[in-house]
């Protein structure tokens, strides 16, 4: 837990105490997995976040109204970890934290390029200001890989509602990123290949 936090964590404005402690906890759990099991060990994010939840609620029982609130928050923190890792990789080429939970450079590359991920993340922060619900669902779905059904169950709403929010949020991100680009036609570079989906 004394490990310094990754570069760039300060850049996230929401670096309050809770964020930092959750970040450190997830970092610790992920590192422990790397030590114990090696890369691509098959630890799911569900397990990781669940462990973090137990650990955090042990320490700070009253911080979250319910499990769903925690999951949304933790997914946001998870994105922070991923983005930091992408940044570090970009600067170091190797040695990032996240092969651990199977975000391998190549796998991440299948979903989106490092630049695209950074852009998505920044734009997502904007969206969080306007419609936090949509941003949370994108954190859960895109960054943490939860299915619509899982997110719906988490929040006690219909799957259709989640899917609609996802469509809308994704549309916002695409629009904001696309219209911010100086020249047209660059959309391919940010979009992901349709069949990338999951790891082996």
């Amino acid at each position, binding site marked *: 837990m004394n490990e310094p936090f990754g570069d760039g964590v300060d850049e996230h404005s929401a670096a309050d105490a809770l964020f930092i402690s959750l970040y450190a906890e997830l970092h610790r759990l992920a590192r422990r997995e790397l030590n114990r099991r090696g890369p691509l060990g*098959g630890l799911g994010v569900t397990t990781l976040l669940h462990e973090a939840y137990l650990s955090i609620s042990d320490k700070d029982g009253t911080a979250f109204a319910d499990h769903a609130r925690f999951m949304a928050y933790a997914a946001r923190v*998870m994105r922070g970890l991923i983005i930091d890792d992408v940044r570090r990789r970009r600067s170091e080429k190797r040695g990032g934290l996240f092969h651990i939970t199977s*975000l391998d450079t190549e796998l991440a590359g299948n979903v989106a390029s490092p630049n695209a991920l950074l852009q998505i993340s920044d734009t997502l922060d904007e969206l969080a200001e306007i419609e936090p619900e949509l941003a949370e669902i994108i954190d859960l*779905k895109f960054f943490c890989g939860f299915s619509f059904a899982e997110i719906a169950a988490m929040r006690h709403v219909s799957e259709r509602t989640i899917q609609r929010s996802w469509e*809308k949020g994704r549309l916002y991100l695409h629009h904001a990123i696309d219209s911010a680009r100086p020249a047209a036609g660059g959309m391919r570079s940010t979009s992901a290949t349709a069949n990338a*989906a*999951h790891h082996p």
Partner: protein
Amino acid sequence: MPPITPDRWRILSPYLDEALDIAADQRPAWLASISERDAALATDLKAMLAEHEVVNQAGFMDGAVLDSQITHTPSLTGQVLGAYRLVSQIGEGGSGSVWLAERCDGRFEGQAAVKLLNVALINRAGEERFRREGTILARLRHPRIAHLIDAGVSKTGQPYLVLEHVDGQCIDDFCEKRSLGIEARLRLFLDVLEAVAHAHANLIVHRDIKPANVLVSVNGDVKLLDFGIAKLVEPGAYTYNADSAESGTVTREVRRAMTPEYAAPEQLAGGAVTTATDVYALGVLLYVLLSGQHPAGEALSSRATLIRAIVETEPPRVSAAIDRMTSGLAVTRHAAQCGTTAIGLRRALRGDLDAIVAKALKKNASERYATVTALADDIRRYQRHEPISARPYTLRDRTARFVRRHAAGVAMSAAVVLLGSGLLAVHTSRLSTERDRAQHEAEKALKVSELLMGLLTSADPYAIRQQSGEPTVRALLDTGANQVQLDMIDQPELQAEMLTMMGRTYERLGEHEKARQLLEQALVSGRKAFGPEHVRVARTLDYLGAMLANKGDNATAARTLEQALEMRRKLLGTEHADVAVTLVELGRVYQDQGLNDRAEGLHREALNIRRKVLGDNHMETAVSQSDLASVLRLNGDLAGAEALLHLSLETNRKTRGEDHLNTFMTLHDLALIATAKGNTRSAESVLRQVLAHQRRTLGDRHRIVAATLNSLAHVLVDQQRHDEAASALQDAAGIARAALGRDNQLVAVYTINLASVRLAQKDPAAAEALLREGLRIRALAPSLVPSRRRTFPQDDWSVGATKSLLGASLVALARHDEAEAVLLDARRDLESLRPFRDADMKATVARLVDLYVAWGKPDAAATYRALLQF
């Protein structure tokens, strides 16, 4: 289209919801209707919907960066659990799969068996409990018991056990394949009994004895597997609910899951599982080994008939079972496998063996052999052609009468029977004369400990959770103690042994006086029986010393423990675990006497022994680390104390679990260090957690809760939060008064602390009343307050220091005459304690200066002010 502003998005958003719910071919009509009201809105929406199509087709952000689920289940081969790597699966059963594993942390310890359990550990508390139980089982060491090496939970939440790998055959197959005769079968069976008796003496019941768990190696060595593991695997064991209705449901589920061939009636009926349950299963095993048949016979064919047979049907005698066999051929075959003929077999079984097996198989647990050793004794008597105990039934009648006389609580009946028939067994053993003395002694010692086990597990609040009906147990203990004192005068060895263990039990129940009586008597009989220097005498001395220390008689406690220490060192060598036990007890007494340097030496020595003998990660080692840390803290070595406490904390977490009182006690001690270092905020938050845990586990009114409140008050005072501190101290004093009596020195400590807070709150009148009460109590025992019970050095309120504080209150109340008398008195008291109480002395002189200034006596003030310069 230009970027959409946040405001614009908020307008568009609900329309997009609507649009996305409409089929694509109806969207133009929908847009047209909007366009009539707001053309710009329709334009934006149209553009967004077009972009939506693009996004969809391009698969923008399809897929996910991480995966929420484990998407592949890697073969378990090669998986690492603890220090072991799984090599290949060697078995699969109801409770889980078994794997051959090898050590992979560099140390060579050959192979092990890893059992992956099918049991849901619902939450972290369940995991902790699983680990804790595993630690208890891991302590069970016997050459005939497969050792549990490790119990843990993998990161995926899979609980597993690492067991000694045993290569052997099930005992029934072994006997059959080797065509062992009845005598040889009995010899093997006695080996099994020896192992089970050892476990029972360590308070562990097997619960699942069956041939598959009794293996015999090629050399004929017996090994028992899975001791106590049935309890670990019980579904619901980790979601224990105090609600009896609910736990009843769980029990029923367990029953359904269990293979009942070797189950005792009480296991099927949901009754208490005790050592008698193992006796029953051993009876079934013996029945099978002798007759080649299960006692239920034909009823074995279906589960329902089997259960009825176990609960209701008296099985045929073993010798009769031979005749029940369906064909003469089967009889001849089994007889041949026993190396005899059908007639020879029947003759061998009829009579004594019939009676022995029948007694082990009694439906009513209290009618079975009271202990495994009693069963073994009868088999040995049979082998020696001596009369066996199972045949004269008057014994049973007497036991039953004893039960009727004493067993008010149904739950306690097992313990009662243990005591009742145990005592009877003692009487009969007096009659046998021609035995090897040493052997005799060993058997008796075992018998005594087994006999007492029933008592201890029922009455000892540390062994199991408090049960209702405790007074019955106490009454039972009283009865037992009387009988031991009166009936065993001519058996000093046995008497010493029983009195020692009963004394210990009384001590644990908090009955110091009764404990003292029995232990002192035990010492007398022990010296008579074993001579003045003997390990048993040393043990009685150790218990007696610890008991005296708990009662507060430090001087006698120190003398007694010094004797015990000398004897143990002489008999056991200087580096023995028992020597460490006495060192710790004595170290605590020295500490209570204020002899911190001496205490430090002893605690260091104990710690070194424990690290060497028990290892760094042992819970006893952690206790010594905490003890030493407490001495160091009071001696001012905060860094040293802190380092030790961190080690202790880690070990406590590992061995006792996150949720154990000792773990929280260590956290409390660490908070005291943090306070001393000025980290009051973090100390406060830790102390509040400790308090919450202690209240949950000990109740709101426990003296330990009071001590923690006192520590919390100090932290609050350091933060100038006097109101909160005062209310914590009021609680502490109230609790201590109720728990320890109004004259207890700790009541004085909390009361005087509260007075000093009142003074800081500018309420000298309240302070005065409190101080007078504090002084009254302190005057009853003017020597120092036991330092081990102190959380802060300043809690050591001497009478002088208390008077000085009273003087300060009187100064504030402007009662100058009285203040002068009290302060001068305080000064005299403190003078006699020099050079120890210099800080208090200085404070007193400063108060005198304040007094004379306020009183308008500048000369006197100047005199004392001059004294302050030194």
